C-alpha cells in the first residue's frame, strides 16, 4: 500500500537539486524527511538548513514533538541559525524553502493567517512563520499540504499571507506546479483519479499533460525507513 506521506516525501525530495541550499522550519517533519532523503539519494551536496541552525546534520535522530530541535544541530558541520537563513534568502542565496499554509489559490497565493477578517477572525491560524518573507525571496518555495479539499484549494483567499516564488505544491493527491503564473496539475499520484482531484479542488484543474507521479522506488522507501524509523513523516496523517 502506497501511503500518502511516503509519496509526498519522495515527491518533495525529488524537487531538490544537488548543491541547492534548502530550508525547512517548524511543524515540518515531511520536508525534514524529504531533505534527508534527497541528500541520501540524488542530492548529496544539497545544503540542509533549519531553525536550530545545524548545517547538514548527519543522520540526526528525529524527534516527534519538533522539527526544530537540537538534534539537528548536534550532528551538524556548521552553525547557521534561523536569523541567518532568513538573511541568506533576503540577499538572494536561498534556493528552496519548504512552507505550508491553509488556503491556496491558483495564482500561487498562500493564506496561513486567518479565516474571516484579520482583526476579527472566524479562525485564527498559526500564522505564516517565514512565508511572507521567504516566498518572495527564496528562488523556489515548495508548498506541502496534507489536506486536499475545496476549502484548501480555493478561488479566493480569505487573506493573502504571501505570494511570490511558489514553484510547486504537493498534496496527498497530486503535484501542482506553477506555470506561467498559474497553478497547474503537474502529476497525479498513483491510485488517484483526476476526477477525484477536480472534485476536491475549488478552482478549475488545468494541465499540459496527464501524467502519473512516479511511485517511490524500493531504494527511496528503504531510505525513508532508514532516515525516519519511527515514521514521523506520517504525523500529519495520524
Amino acid at each position, binding site marked *: 500500500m502506497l501511503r500518502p506521506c511516503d509519496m509526498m516525501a519522495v515527491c518533495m525530495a525529488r524537487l531538490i537539486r544537488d548543491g541547492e541550499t534548502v530550508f525547512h522550519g*517548524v511543524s515540518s517533519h515531511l520536508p525534514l524527511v524529504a531533505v534527508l532523503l534527497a541528500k541520501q539519494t540524488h542530492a548529496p551536496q544539497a545544503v540542509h538548513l533549519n531553525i536550530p541552525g545545524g548545517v547538514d546534520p548527519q543522520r540526526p535522530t528525529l524527534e516527534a514533538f519538533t522539527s526544530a*530541535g*537540537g538534534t539537528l*544541530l548536534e550532528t551538524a558541520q556548521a552553525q547557521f541559525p534561523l536569523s541567518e537563513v*532568513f538573511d541568506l534568502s533576503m540577499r538572494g542565496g536561498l534556493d528552496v524553502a519548504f512552507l505550508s499554509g491553509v488556503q491556496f489559490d491558483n495564482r500561487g497565493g498562500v493564506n496561513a493567517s486567518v479565516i474571516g477578517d484579520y482583526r476579527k477572525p472566524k479562525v*485564527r491560524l498559526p500564522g505564516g512563520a517565514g512565508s511572507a518573507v521567504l516566498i518572495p525571496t527564496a528562488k523556489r518555495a515548495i508548498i506541502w499540504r496534507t489536506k486536499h479539499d475545496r476549502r484548501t484549494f480555493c478561488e479566493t483567499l480569505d487573506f493573502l*499571507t504571501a505570494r*511570490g516564488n511558489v514553484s510547486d505544491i504537493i498534496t496527498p493527491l497530486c503535484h501542482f506546479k506553477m506555470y506561467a503564473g498559474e497553478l497547474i496539475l503537474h502529476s497525479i499520484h498513483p491510485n488517484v483519479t483526476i476526477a477525484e482531484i477536480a472534485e476536491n479542488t475549488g478552482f478549475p484543474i488545468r494541465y499540459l499533460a496527464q501524467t502519473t507521479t512516479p511511485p517511490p522506488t524500493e531504494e527511496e522507501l528503504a531510505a525513508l525507513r532508514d532516515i525516519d524509523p519511527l515514521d514521523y513523516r506520517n504525523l500529519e496523517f495520524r
Partner: protein
Amino acid sequence: MNKLMDLAAAMAQIPDGAMVGLGGNTLNRAPMAAVMALAYQGKQGLRLVKTAGGMDVDLLCFAGCVSSVDAGFISYETQYSLCQHYRSAVQAGKVQANEHACYTVISALRAASYGIPFMPVRGLVESDLVAANEYFAKVKDPFSGDILNAVRAIQPDVSIVHVHMADARGNAVIEGPQYDDILLSRASKTVILTAERIVGDGYFAASSRKADIPHFMVSAVVHAPRGAAPGACYGVHGVSDDELHSFLALADAEALTQWLTRRHVYA
C-alpha cells in the same frame, strides 16, 4: 552583585501591561516555569513577543494574562497540534494577534538592539500583512530612491530566557540551539534568566566557553531546574508527554488554576 532570587520574586518584577519577550522556540526551551508563575500571579495585559511560540503563549492566553501577541507562528507543532486557547482568545477579541513573519520579529528586535526606530526588510512583496498592520510601512532607500518595506522596532520591557548555566551575577550560557534568545537579550530593556544550573562566580572566566549573555543585561537570575518543562530543554530532557496532555485536557480557567496551583506547590 548577586541577582539570585526565587521565581515568584523575579516574576513580581514584571508589571501588568509589560511587553515580554519569550525565549526558545515552540516546545524547545521556552521558559515554562516562568510562564506558569506569571499565570499564577495573575498578570494582566502582557504584550508577548516571540518568533515562534507554543505552549508559553497558549497558557498565558488561557490564563487571561495577555493583551497582544507579536509573533510569526503560534502552535505546538504537529504532534500536539494547535494553540486552542490562543486561537479562542484572538477570535473572541480578547487578544490582538499581531502577525509577523518570524523574520520581521527578528528585524524589529535587531532595530531595537541597534537603537534605530525601524529596519528595512526584503520580502513582504505581496502580502496583506503590510496593509493590515501599523508596524509595517514603506521606506525609501535614500541612495537609489527605491521603495522597500520596513518594520518598526520592538523593544521588550523584559525578556525571559531559560538557560543551561548562569552565575549569580547573570552571566549565562545556552547550549545547543540558541534560537533568537541572544538577540532578544540585546533588544530588551532587561533580561530575567531561569537556569538549569547555577555556577560559581569564577566559572566563565576560567572556561574557554564564555557566557553568551553578559551579566550587565540581566536583572534577575532564578535557579529553575526543568524550567522549560513540560517542553524540552536541549541536552537535559525531552517533552513530558503526560504533563502536556494534562494541560491540553484542562476544561476551563478553574481547572487551569488548580493545575497551576498543584505545580506551584510542588515547585
